[in-house]
């Protein structure tokens, strides 16, 4: 099938090996750079998100015990694990098989899969006879997009299933039947990573069926549809718990405005231009149907992103970049009336392509967690009794587990637990109460001995430093400050009811 929007008549499966190899090297540099810069800034390897430390902790458990954990002894003060730890199992396997420390696996495995995914994507383009200019610009825009950088630099559940989907597609379009069977086998692994990838695989193979009318594509999508039925309960559960967008906060999906794995505004503008250009173009009706279905996929993924799972942004990015490439080519080839408008506009676009990843990589060096938070929690690790829980804001929960080896009261992975809502409500009351009796009862119930706060959380949660619980923290009869750096505070609870 040809995507002939800008076809200038040449054979479009022309290989450009030099560009490919050079770009592969460029991708390697761009994916390794964030971790190296972060290391240089902090004098130690600090992972890019607190979730990474969760993967690390469970991975270490698997290596030590040789089994997948069913119970997390630290999260939520101790809880049954909902997830099946397949991702952590993969990490542990890589570490054991290749004898690489788990920390390095967590840091560099995404990079490795990013490179392979890039290669698979390139070969897919060759298979689909994508025109050379389109191919090159797509890959450049993709590699410099913040979403791509986040996906393959930060430890997350998504990069392996995305690799599996790309591998499956490549094998599916092979001429040998054996490879198509192998493609199906790869699809069998995808459901272990979550319903999101099942949905994406289903939509993708439906798209292939629409374009090629191949019956086995329909079979693949029906198979994935059947698998999806088993996830309905989880989907409904996610829907009830997802924090819906605050549309008035403005920065909810733009990396330029601070969203960690967001789009760049530049690529969104190109995306809009590309959509307009493609749908205004008088092309053959089957391509129009292809584009309509792709937009349908985009809308479905957007709904999933808004209402179910923020990881859908990784798939949305491919579609954004796809139409963004059309927009980019349109801007390049547009008939400008005044010559300097052309030069300036192209200069501006190229500047954005160059500077966006530079700024994003620079901002990655300052991602949470900070060195100070880690130092403070490591200090807490040295306290006498690790059974006592640490009270903090939700986002610190996983970090508390890993560095202090203390249980937390709540963290980002607790939402599936039965008493999550009740506990969340109690915690929200705790933040703003000045009632020491309530605090006594709460701390006794959850076996809390320590309080961990940083300045950023204080500014986010409270309006001023005497509000609610912060007021009680200043009282020496209830709390003793045992750690105080510029930005991080740890208090020990010394008041007991009746004394």
């Amino acid at each position, binding site marked *: 099938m040809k995507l002939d929007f800008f076809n200038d008549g040449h054979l479009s499966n022309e290989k450009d090996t030099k560009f490919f190899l050079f770009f592969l090297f460029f991708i390697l540099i761009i994916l390794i750079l964030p971790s190296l810069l972060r290391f240089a800034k902090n004098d130690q390897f600090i992972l890019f998100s607190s979730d990474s430390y969760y993967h690390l902790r469970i991975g270490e458990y698997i290596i030590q015990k040789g089994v997948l954990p069913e119970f997390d002894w630290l999260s939520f003060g101790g809880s049954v694990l909902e997830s099946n730890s397949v991702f952590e199992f993969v990490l542990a396997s890589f570490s054991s098989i290749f004898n690489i420390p788990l920390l390095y696996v967590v840091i560099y495995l995404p990079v490795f899969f990013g490179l392979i995914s890039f290669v698979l994507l390139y070969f897919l383009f060759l298979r689909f006879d994508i025109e050379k200019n389109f191919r090159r610009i797509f890959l450049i825009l993709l590699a410099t997009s913040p979403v791509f950088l986040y996906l393959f630099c930060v430890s997350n559940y998504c990069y392996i299933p995305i690799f599996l989907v790309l591998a499956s597609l490549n094998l599916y379009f092979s001429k040998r039947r054996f490879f198509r069977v192998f493609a199906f086998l790869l699809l069998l692994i995808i459901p272990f990573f979550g319903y999101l990838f099942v949905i994406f695989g289903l939509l993708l193979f439906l798209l292939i069926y629409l374009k090629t009318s191949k019956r086995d594509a329909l079979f693949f999508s029906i198979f994935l549809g059947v698998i999806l039925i088993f996830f309905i309960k989880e989907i409904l559960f996610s829907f009830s718990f997802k924090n819906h967008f605050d549309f*008035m*906060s*403005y*920065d909810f999906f*733009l990396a*330029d*405005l*601070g969203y960690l794995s967001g789009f760049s*505004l*530049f690529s969104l*503008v190109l995306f809009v*231009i590309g959509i307009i250009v493609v749908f205004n173009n008088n092309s053959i009706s089957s391509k129009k149907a292809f584009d309509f279905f792709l937009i349908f996929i985009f809308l479905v993924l957007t709904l999933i992103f808004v209402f179910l799972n923020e990881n859908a942004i990784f798939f949305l990015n491919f579609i954004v970049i796809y139409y963004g490439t059309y927009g980019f080519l349109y*801007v390049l080839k*547009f*008939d*400008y*009336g*005044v010559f*300097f*408008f052309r030069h*300036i*506009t192209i200069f*501006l*676009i190229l*500047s*954005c392509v160059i*500077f*966006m990843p530079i*700024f994003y990589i620079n*901002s990655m060096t300052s991602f949470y967690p900070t060195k100070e938070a880690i130092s403070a929690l490591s200090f807490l690790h040295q306290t006498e009794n690790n059974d006592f829980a640490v009270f903090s804001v939700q986002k610190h929960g996983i970090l508390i587990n890993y560095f202090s080896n203390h249980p937390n009261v709540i963290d980002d992975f607790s939402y599936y637990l039965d008493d999550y809502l009740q506990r969340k409500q109690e915690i929200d009351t705790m933040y703003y109460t000045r009632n020491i009796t309530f605090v006594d009862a709460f701390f006794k119930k959850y076996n809390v001995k320590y309080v961990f706060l940083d300045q950023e959380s204080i*500014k986010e949660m409270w*309006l*001023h*430093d*005497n509000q609610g619980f912060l007021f009680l923290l200043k009282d*020496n009869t209830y709390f*003793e*400050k045992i750690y105080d750096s510029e930005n991080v505070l740890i208090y020990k609870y010394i008041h007991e009811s009746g004394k």
Partner: protein
Amino acid sequence: MVGYINNKGILKRELFVVFLIFLSICIVRLFLALSVEGFSSDNSYYVLRQVEHISTFGTPIIHDDLSYMGRTYFVLPVFYYVLAFFDLFLPIDLVCKIIPNIVAPIGIFIVYFIGVEITKNKDAALFTSFMSGIVPVFLSETVYSVSVYSFVIPLFLLLIFCLIKLSKLDDLRDAKEVRFYKILYFVFFILLSFLHQSVILFVLFLWVYFLVSFVEGSKVTNSEIELTLFSSFFVIWFFLITMKPLFLEYGASVIFGGVPHFIRYYFFTNFTLLESMYKLGIIPVLYGLYSLFRFTFGKQEKYVYMLVSLIYLMLVLLWFRVISFNLGLIFLGNFLMIVILLHYDFLFEFFNFKKNNKSFAFLKVVFVSYYILSFIISSVFPSLTYLGLEKEKIPTTDEIYIFQYMKQNIPNGSVVVAIPDYGQKIAYFSNKKTIMDSYYFGVKESSRLIDLEKMYTTSSLSTATPLFDKYGADYILISSKTKLAYNSTFPSYVDSKCFDLITQKNDVFLFKLKCKVVTFET
């Protein structure tokens, strides 16, 4: 300009009338501005400080030790440099009164040119340009204040004029003229980008216009696409490269003045139609809404879609309190003038059509008188009212006396507790630090707002003194304006032994804190 000069090389009658209107508005503005000493808004004193700094050191103030007890500004410097240039010839006070009040009414010319371009009806264009010089909210915000919007609004209108011109020209037949207006657009757009971040509003307007054109099935020209592409990418590049740290820290609120949401909901009043009518003028609002309704539906000329897009964009931004009420009304007021031009065009065409009919000639006189009278009642009187209210905000001689006293008698580095409206004034007159002022761009700490309110509303010494200690403040300024700001009586704790009355001038008081808060370190 070709077409506006007759065979004898003299400006045509209509343009001469526009010039007279411009001159009259200018004279009225200058008379009002020069009849008072000082400026009404606190931000004017921020501008004065910037201009003074440029005149002295050649660069604007980036890090300010006085505002919020120390902060960094993001500065788009064109406005300050223009004023600083004129400071070479005139005293700074005069420059800041004269230049903005001469530049702001330039919009009258532009509205006239737009009117002629759209309707070819010089009478309607004349009448509308006259009305555009008397938008109550624009007058009240720019006569007694040094406001960047004196420059922004005329530039905005110039860009719209260029767009309207380009939408009517044929790329091939009128190539030279197309080139000329594109270059003009380029120059004005770059200027606006370096002047104020409301250039982003202009780019948003372009996209809304495209959307409206698409919905209405109207074809956009190559020139419009070219300018939109250039504008969009320039703004992305300019703001995301130069303002990147600000965007990362403060999010999208940077675009609309950088006012954080907790201040927005505290100070930005809700958009209400009634108050809009007073601030814009009842006639412009009613006729503008009528014209908007009439021209929203059905096939229209491209310039109608442009105007409709502008108005709708402003209404949406106002409704969601993305921009402040007064700022939104300043834009809305000027754009509505162009919209109601379409209404007047119809009216004047009707009268011209019937001009040979004697009874219609009489009716024409009646209607024109009615429009002039209703305009005077609905725009001129509210303008005078709002100007009167603004005049009251100008620092009184009592306040200036206290500010001067502070400069001479209070040690450098002292922190003064004062309402935000006094912040930059104290920095300008007294060179002293304040907790908060009205330049809210990039403010992160919501606690200051609450603390300040507490300091002025509490009667408890034990509540107030820790707050003084928190900010290292030693002085508090109290006046009738502070009581008005917080709707409170005189804070009674200042009568205690912990405070000394340093000086007083009628109803303006300056107190000094004597007691220190003792804290026990853990």
